[in-house]
């Protein structure tokens, strides 16, 4: 490994923040710099760009806080079918409440909770082939498409997404779905006056 050094330029503000972190961690600034570059190279080696790595950070944080469990999709689909038999309403309410909790958390923690929610769905629900979020001036449209999602699975996911948006302070203005397809539109709730 080369021991020679080269000069690199960094903005002064960033250097100040970096020095503060290095001080907190009890390491020299030079070590902090090298570790940072090594991490960036690792990201590159693993096949993603820095922007993607930045999104991943937030999703990872949200996943860990909210508690996600890996489950086999085949079992998941079967259990959803069994559980929702005749009890669709209470089952869907559970999904709605779970979504609302997630939405509230994202709203509290992130500047752009909708973007993080989309990343969250992309990272956790790969049974969805496509997730599209259009953040317009007066409303937010969300569309999910899946070729493997069952009827009941679609309903449950719809309630979860709806709950998440309600938790983020939106209300539903359009809700449409069929097996493997969810189309939702929301608008920002007006502030409640007390």
């Amino acid at each position, binding site marked *: 490994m080369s021991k020679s050094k080269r000069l690199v*330029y*960094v903005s002064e503000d*960033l250097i100040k923040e970096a020095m503060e972190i290095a001080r907190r961690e009890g390491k020299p600034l030079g070590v902090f710099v090298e570790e940072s570059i090594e991490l960036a190279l*690792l990201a590159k080696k693993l096949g993603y760009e820095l922007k993607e790595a930045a999104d991943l950070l937030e999703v990872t944080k949200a996943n860990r806080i909210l508690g996600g469990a*890996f489950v086999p999709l085949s*079992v998941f689909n079967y*259990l959803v079918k069994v559980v929702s038999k005749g009890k669709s309403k209470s089952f869907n309410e*559970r999904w709605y409440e*779970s979504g609302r909790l997630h939405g509230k958390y994202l709203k509290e923690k992130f500047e752009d909770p909708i973007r993080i929610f989309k990343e969250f769905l992309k990272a956790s629900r790969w049974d969805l082939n496509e997730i599209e979020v259009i953040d317009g001036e007066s409303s937010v449209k969300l569309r999910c498409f899946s070729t493997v999602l069952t009827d009941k699975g679609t309903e449950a996911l719809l309630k979860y997404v709806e709950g998440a948006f309600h938790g983020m302070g939106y209300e539903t203005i359009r809700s449409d779905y069929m097996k493997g397809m969810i189309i939702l539109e929301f608008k920002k709730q007006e502030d409640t006056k007390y």
Partner: protein
Amino acid sequence: MTLKSIKRKSLFAREDLVNRLLSIAKKQGRSLYGLVNEIFELVIRAEDLGVNLQKAFKERWILKKARKDGFILVPEGLWYEITEIAFQNSKDETLKRWFEAGAWLAKRYIEVETEKPFEAFKRSIKAYSWNVPEITIEEDDGQVSVRIISPRMTESYTTLYSVFIQGVLETFGYKISGKSVSTGAIRIKAVRKGQDVKE
């Protein structure tokens, strides 16, 4: 619009690392200064969020692998509830589905990970069990010992997860020689088929 000049400072960094960054910057048609700043911004943001970047990158690997293995990520609390209800409503079929899911996963590793499929399976299942505080799978001389401890698991979920592991082990060519399952704790011992159990 007021233009604010950004003050720059210089830092020394290892030459081999800087050279690699230079090559990336060149490929992306951007300046080394821009790339280095972006790296610092990312690391500082991670620090602010309290996230270990290296761990985050590894978790990304887990997400990609889990997708290939047919797993999805669902809210844990909700998952335990669903499992509980399904187990009460349709016990035998639910047990069968879990066993089959384990068998399917093991078959996939046998087919795809031709070098050391059981080792690859162990790595993956440990990674997917990030919500399980203790999971050990030891393999020695044709015998396997599995120990899973999680206070969060319900009684039904523990039973179902043990059946899932059983499906995996049997498909990998092991015969269950001992099994103990109680709420939140699974212990399974298995021996390669055709081999005697060692005392």
